[in-house]
């Protein structure tokens, strides 16, 4: 083999190796699409999206679209507060991945406003809570005291295995209650995923 041929082969091999390195560059993916990654043991972006979409559609179709939603908020809009969302899964999740989407959608309907000064773990916005207390104390402006509705929920997990096939089921449950403590809307969305267990590497 002559020397120029060896040099050319070396250049081509180096270029190929460098090209391979460049492939580790990150690629942007639309989080609303089905191109995001998903696995069996976790609640992925697609799962949160599907659970939120189901809950939003159900809440609008079964409750808000009935025209019965009226409240003490501005322009007669209903005031909603977020109650406890229990995570009964074995994984640590931020339930705002679900709740925030629902809140945004409900606000977008023009029929609901969310009270961010009421919350089980303290107000979401402490400054807004302080301003509200001040308004209530001074009585300068009409401030709604209690929310008209509260939203609560639970996420449950069920795992099973058959051979090297694994299955995870995540159940999203939500309820909307009035001031009287009566649930006026409830729904459940179940998402099941299957996958093969990765082979053990030594």
């Amino acid at each position: 083999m002559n020397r120029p041929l060896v040099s050319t082969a070396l250049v081509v091999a180096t270029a190929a190796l460098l090209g391979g390195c460049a492939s580790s560059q990150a690629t942007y993916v639309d989080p609303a699409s089905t191109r995001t990654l998903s696995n069996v043991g976790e609640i992925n972006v697609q799962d949160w999206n599907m659970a939120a979409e189901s809950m939003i559609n159900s809440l609008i179709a079964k409750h808000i679209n009935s025209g019965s939603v009226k409240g003490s908020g501005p322009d007669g809009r209903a005031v909603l507060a977020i109650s406890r969302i229990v995570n009964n899964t074995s994984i640590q999740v931020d339930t705002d991945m679900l709740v925030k989407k629902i809140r945004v959608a409900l606000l977008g309907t023009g029929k609901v406003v969310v009270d961010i000064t009421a919350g089980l773990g303290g107000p979401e916005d402490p400054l807004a809570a302080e301003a509200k207390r001040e308004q209530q104390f001074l009585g300068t402006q009409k401030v709604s005291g209690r929310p008209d509705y509260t939203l609560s929920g639970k996420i449950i997990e069920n795992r099973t295995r058959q051979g090297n096939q694994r299955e995870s089921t995540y159940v999203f449950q939500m309820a909307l209650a009035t001031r009287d403590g009566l649930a006026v809307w409830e729904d459940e969305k179940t998402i099941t995923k299957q996958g093969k267990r990765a082979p053990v590497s030594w």
Partner: protein
Amino acid sequence: MNSNTVRALATATLMALLGAGCQTVNTTETAQPAFQRNLVSEKRVITDASLARKVQILGVNVSDGPGGFLKVQAEVQNTTRRYQRFAYKWEWFDKDGNLVEGPSSVSIIRQVEGKESLFINGVAPNPSVRDYRLKLYENAR
């Protein structure tokens, strides 16, 4: 084993293998339904002929609730004898044709058995929505 037996066995094995992925659905319903769907005329743009051959939209009906939110229901049928997976996404438009975005405008994955039909429901994110578009995607995971 003579050649006829071998041929018969091979044919049976091939049929069994081909039939393994085919599970169709038998349905029953009233001959004269008590409801009447408000079916709308649609314009279809098909760029994925492969998906259009497998999953077809049979009809779309639209209704409006007292709250003024548009509710759309599309009936989709798997025209093949095989289990299919697809994704769909709703897009909503106001009276001026502007896209109304929201957290519910995401791709949703559905599965449909061979020859089965199912309904896809969409609810407008707010009462200003006057029109819709339904997108179907193939190769959903």
